Every structure is written in C-alpha cells, then in structure tokens.
C-alpha cells in the first residue's frame, strides 16, 4: 500500500521533471524588454504564445540597398555637403551635435541624424545650415516633400550667405526633379 502511494507520488515528481525540458525555454523572467503579457491571463494558451505587437514599428526602412528597378527610383545622389567650418565654430553645441549627425549618417541611421539635427535646431532655431542639413537628410531618405519644406526654411534664414543659398537652391532643384 505504502509503496503504491510513494510510487504514485514519485511518478508525479518524475513527470514534472521529465516534462520540464520543452516548456522552460525563456529562462529568467527578469529582463522584460519585450512587450509584456499581463500576468494571470485567463486563457493559459495566450500567455504561452508570443504576445502580439500592438504598436506600429515606425522606424522608417533604411533605403541603402534598394536595387534600381522600374518601380523604385535609384538611391539618390548624396546631397551636396557644405564645409563644416562654415556652419559652426568647433567646440560649440552645434558643432558637437553636427558631429553626431555625421556619425549617425555614416551608420545609416538617418532618423537619428534627423533627430540630432532637430536637437541642434532647438538650440539655434535660426541657423540656416541646420535647416539645410535636415533638408538633405530627408532628401536622402527620399522624403521629398519634407525636404522641400526644410530647404525653403533654410533659404529664409540664409540671408546674405551666398554660398549656402546656392547650395540650398541646388538641393531645391534636385527635389524639383523628383
């Protein structure tokens, strides 16, 4: 009798051990960077599944390697760059941030480049070069409408800077052809 009970009990434990392999796949539940599931869900199947992402992932696709087909336009030429020293003297907030913009562009993270340009614009909102920079980032992202808005804004602040005005007009010309 007693052996029978202990047998059953050990079966209970063994079954627990044996079935452990497949189910315990995720391991430590401590880092929760993934979208979380509310604990205590009524449907046991739901909590075992990968929770559905209910937010849009809006990070725009990076269009570095788009092949030139009939449908997709070829990747645009890099926008004309103006020399850095015209934009901001070294050691200023703007030059520091422009270095980050360059770095983000080099890494192909256009959206971060745009974000850092915006951060610089909050510090110097009337800096024509920063607006121009933002315009050329959007141009390279093929977001031409936005690029045009920024380029026109840049032009409105360019004042007597003929070189910069020429560059901005050249960019506007390129946008026009799209």
């Amino acid at each position, binding site marked *: *009798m007693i052996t*029978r*009970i202990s047998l*059953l*009990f050990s079966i*209970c*434990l063994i079954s*627990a*051990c044996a*079935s*452990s392999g497949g*189910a*315990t*796949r995720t*391991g*430590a*539940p*401590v*880092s*929760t*960077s993934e*979208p*979380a599931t*509310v*604990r*205590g869900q009524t449907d046991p199947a739901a909590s*075992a599944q990968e*929770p559905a992402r*209910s*937010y*849009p*992932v*809006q990070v725009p696709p990076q269009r570095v390697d788009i092949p030139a087909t009939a449908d997709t336009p070829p990747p645009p030429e890099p926008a004309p760059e103006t020399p850095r020293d015209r934009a901001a003297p070294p*050691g200023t*907030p703007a*030059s*520091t*941030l422009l270095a*980050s913009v360059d770095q*983000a562009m080099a890494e192909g993270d256009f*959206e*971060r480049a*745009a*974000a*850092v340009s*915006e*951060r610089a*614009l*909050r*510090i110097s*909102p*009337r800096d024509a070069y920063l607006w121009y920079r*933002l315009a050329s980032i959007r141009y390279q992202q093929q977001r031409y409408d*936005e690029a045009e*808005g*920024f380029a*026109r*804004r840049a032009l*409105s602040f360019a*004042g007597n800077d003929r070189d910069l005005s020429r560059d901005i007009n050249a960019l506007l010309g390129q946008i026009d052809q799209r």
Partner: protein
Amino acid sequence: MWWLIRRLIVVLVAAIAIWCVWIDYKIRRDFSALQWALPARLYARPVELYAGAHLSAAELTDTLRRLGYRESSQVAGPGEYTANGSRVSLWTRGFSFWDGDEPSIYVDVDFLGRRVNALRGNQATGEIALARLEPVEIAQINPDTGEDRLPLALSDVPTDLVNAVIAVEDHRFYNHFGVDPIGIARAFVTNLRAGGIVQGGSTLTQQLIKNLYLTEEQTLRRKIEEALMALALELHFSKEEILGAYMNEIFLGQDGNRAIHGFALAAEHYFGRPLDELDLDELALLAGLPRGASYYHPGRNPQRATDRRNVVLAQMMNQGFISQQQMEQAQAQELSVSARPTQRGSGYPAFMDLVREDLSRDYDADALQTEGLRIFTTLDLRVQNTMEAALNDAVAAVEVPPAPGQAAGAPLEAAMVITDASTGDIRAVAGSRRPGYTGFNRALRAVRPVGSLVKPAVMLAALESGNYSLASVLSDAPVTIELDGDNTWSPRNYDNQMYGDVYLYDALQRSLNLATVDIGMQIGVPDVVNTLRELGLTSNPPPYPSVLLGAVNMSPLDVAQMYQTLASNGFRSPLRAVEAVTTGTGERLARYGIETEQVADPTSMYLLEWAMQGVFERGTARNMATRLDRNLPLAGKTGTTNDLRDSWFAGYGSDLAGVVWLGHDDNRETGLTGSSGALRVWTDIMSKLEIQPRQSFTPADVVFQRVAQQAIRNGNSRDCSDTIMLPFREGQLPDPATSCDNNDSLLDRLIDRVRNIRP
C-alpha cells in the same frame, strides 16, 4: 471493507497526483512566461546645458531635486550636485535617449543672471560644449493591476541588498529546495524565545509564490499548495532566476492607487534615487520592508523602520556579510527618506490629454498600460511651471467682480497654450486657471468663436493676392451685406464709431471691423477661408461674410496652430506633443519629427508681421508696451467676441508663441475685451518667461517708403507734414495719393509744409 478503503486511497492518491501535475504545469507555464505589465512612462523634454541656455541656477537645482540628485559638499559620483552662488557642479547619471546614449559626466555650470554662461568639465571629461540631464518623468499610464515596477536584472542589484534580503528573510536560501524545515523550526524557536514573530519560516521561494498568486488566504490547503509550488519552482528554475524574480516581484509599498513592486522602484519611491546610488543603511531599510511595507513605512513609522533596519544590519553582520564597524556606522545613520512631490500620474493633466490623443492614433490602451513604453514628450517644465505658478493670479487680476447684488457665478476660466515659435513643439498647456485641474480641458475642448484673431488671415489673404499693400486705403464705413434670401448683415465696430478712410495696417492694428469687412469682401470670403486653412485651421467653415470678423469656432489649441504658422514666418509645422516612443530599454519604436511646409510668401509674411508688431506699438496691445519694453518687438492680436463672452490674445516672440483664452464655461459675459483680459494674462506670463524679441530678415524685394499719416483717396489733400515709414513689396508701392516719398518733387514737399502751417 479493506477493498473499499484501498480503492478510496488509490483514488485519493490519484487525485493528489493529478493536483501535483497541475501545479507543476502551472508553475512552469506562468513562471517561464512571467513578464510584468509595465506602465508607459512619459518624460518631459530634458534640460540641455550649454553656454547661452535660458536657465537660472535656481531652475537647474530645482530640476536636479526633482530628479532625486543629492546635494553634497563635494560631488563624488552620479546623482550628486553642489550649488555655490552662480556655480552649480553636478555629475549626471546618463540616460539612454532615443537619439543616442547620453554619458554620465561631471560638469561645472556657471551662470550669469538667468542664463548659462559657461560649462566646464573636469580632467576626465575635458571640454564640454553640451550636456543633457536625464528627463523628468511626468506621468505614467498605469496597468489595470495598479502594479508598478522597474524591472532589473539580478546582476544589476547591489550585492549588499541581495545579502541583506537573504540574511533577514532566508539565510539558508542557497541550501534548501524551496521549503526549509530547518528554517521553520528555527523560526519557531526564535519566535518562542522572543515572544513574538521576529523571524518568518517562509523561504524567499515561498514568498515569491505568495506574491505571484496574490492570496492572503491562510488555509492548510493553501499552505500545502504553496509549498508544492515552491518545490516545483526550485525543480525547474535556478536560484538566480528565483532570486531575480523575487527582487522585482515583491510588494514594497503603496503610493495612492499605485502598488510599488520590486526594489528598484522602491528605491525611487522612498529615496528618489536609483538603487545603485543607495548606501548600506538605505539598502538595509529596503530589505526590511517585505515583512510589512506599511508597518515598517519609514515615513509614517520612522521608529519601527529604524529598528527593522538595524535588525537587518545585525543579521548581515551575524552572517558575515558586513563587519561590525560597517554595521555600527550604518545603524548610526538618520533615516533619509525623500519628501519628493508625489506628482506622478496626474502632474500635468491638460498636457497628458494631448499626449493621449496623439498616442491613441498609433497605440491602443493595452500597449500603453502594459508594455513599459517610454514616451518622450515636448513638455518644457520651465515654461509649464512658470505658467502654472502665474496663471491663476493673472486671471484673478483681470476678472470683473459681479455687480453688487448680483449672484457670483462660477469664476472666470482660462486656457493657455505655449508653443515653440519655430518648430511647433507644444511646450506648455493649461486647461484651466487652476494648475493640475483634471476636469474639462478648455485648451482642447473649449471651441469658441475667435473674433478678431482671424483678422491677420484676412490681411494676409489681401497681401498674398498681390493687389494690396499695407498702405491700401480701406473704407471704415457702415455697410450692409446681403446674405442668402432676405437676410442682411450690418457689422459694426467694437466702439460703434466709424473711422472713414484707413490704411490696411491701421485697420489690423486697431482691429477695425468695418474696414476688415471692406477688404474681406473685396478679396472674397472663400479666399480668406483658404488662407485660414493654409495657416492650419482644420475645420472648414462655410464662407459667410461673418467669418471675416471671427465667426469661426476654434479651440485654443487650434488658434495655437494658426499663430504658430504666423510665428514661423509662413511655415506651417503641425503642433506636436510627442517626439518619440521607445521600448523600456531604449529601442526606438516611433519618431514624430518636425515637419514644415511653406504656406505663404515671405514678403507677404514680412509685411503682415510689420503690422502685427504695431499692435503692441500703436494698436490694441499698446497698453502693455511699457511692461514689455525689454521684450519688444513682439507680434500679436487681440480677439473679443459678441457681448464680451470670450477674451483672446495670441502673440509671439522669436522663441515662443502663446495663446490665452478667458471665458465662462456657461458662455456668459466676461466684461472683458481681448485687450483688457487675455492680453494682460499673456503679458504677465510671457514677461516672466522672458519672451525673446522678434528678429526679422528683410526680404530682398522689400522697400521702405513714406506715406502720409492720414489715409486719403484724393492726392490733392495729401498731408505729408506727418508721415509714417512703411515697408512695401517692390512693384506694389503706395498709391501716389498717399505717398510722400521720391515720387514727390522737393517743391511739392515745400508746398505741403507751407500749406500745413496754420495760424
């Protein structure tokens, strides 16, 4: 008989076995999928430090305190600062922003008045041009469970805290299998000796189970189930996994309707600082809380909390985790619980409304409540707090008291929206004159006629048509306009006067209704509606002539959008409250960048701006000119509606644009014009914010010319003894009848002068 008993036993055992299997299954399923519902956290725009930044030493230290920085005589690590006259030294904590990681650095900030004069690093950091503080968390969107936590990997939990918890709660943690009979026996003896409960017999594993399944029930069945679950948990998961989950799961306090779970959040809650900045005595205090977060609450029961902390420290010493000296030092510390403002969750309800509205386009409520998103907003705490501090008094100062004998109704209400003049970022919002008011949000939902606030759009439409200049002569004379059917419309001026022939710029500055209707009817109402929509109006008002005088309903936010376009010289940028959304670990999910579109010709905008600056110099806002003499030139426009029901002012400098609305929720009369009400409130707040003067580039095709001060249609009676200099578009010069420049000969001017010498 025996047979029956044996049958019963077999059935019973089978039932127990099935129960075991079920428990085992449940533990594996729940624990391996254990991911907490995490609230979305909303952040204000972080404070940027750079030479020239608009920030005072007091504002900086205020922000540092909100971020839980500790004031110390010598800044030795992240999260500390020293304020010394015009210098504030601090060590930032660093933060994972969506546009890159901000490093943790030491920086000296020198102030000159209300601006940052210079930044200096130390030898390690070198030259610093720019530093960014961590963003202040302004609100959360909480899960329905009411639980909140900041999940942390076990490797990031300070060793002292892990030791303290093990020492006081379960010092045989590494030696048992989830249940600890020896521990239970020892606790029993200890408690017997002490004559009360000083030690629990529950292992950490059992406590974790208890927390996960949230039952207070103390039945034997419950106890057995708990023990079995603890065994199953130990069977399938490592000690580190269990300890890590415990550190994040355990309940450690209550903050309003928010339950504080896990040590990382408890550190923020009780000390206002991150866990890794806490000292031994503070960690020991937290380690004592699982026993009874309310009973040992350091704020409410400081003595009990201190005693409990000292017990934890003594246990740590007994088990060799700390030396006697460490123990004594820590036990001698005062309790240092932060008295931090509990503004979480409901700090800025009007702004939060806007954020929710923006986010609801892309995120459902569930994602916001459970996925631990980080939402970076455009809220500028300097602007928001300055506005909130001043708004109620500013409104009270203009409020018209009820006539004697008349019952006082609900007090005058207000709404205000302040945006960044060049990007359209919403920097501050008030939905009521009372800060923190969570009811009707007037900034978004008080949709009212805007009165003369439309006049700049009428004038812009005229200037854009190319047929009018600032010196175009309009007729401010009675008019009756036929509407559909037999209806007619006979507008009047606010003061019931008529001013005859007036210049276009003058009609705008003095807000003359009849002259505005004159020009509006010349260019056509549909053109004016088009211009309004170009400026950012989203509704589509029917093109009745009354639109010319502001029979258009807009919320203060709509007005802010329209004036934003004027403030950025004809570039419309959609207002935005949310800049980016990331996961809890800083991975970028969405970004809402600045957009801008040119909707008006720069020269037309320049001319309009000139006229609108005159509103402060000569027009309806001139009564505030002396109070704003450090800020002028500014541009703006007053608005008043029928019977003084709404008082509006919208105006802008080079950095900020602001809209103020005053009125009553039941739409009764306020007794205020735009000029006597909203303008004064606007001035109070904008002068405190040190709104920056407008800076305008003069477009290349603008020329300045003199015209006679008095507008006339007949050149023969032109009076050039008193002139005014106005900007004109090249090729759209003043009518010869009014011009007093170039196109006159010297002789003509001499004759003019002689003619005007009167005895």
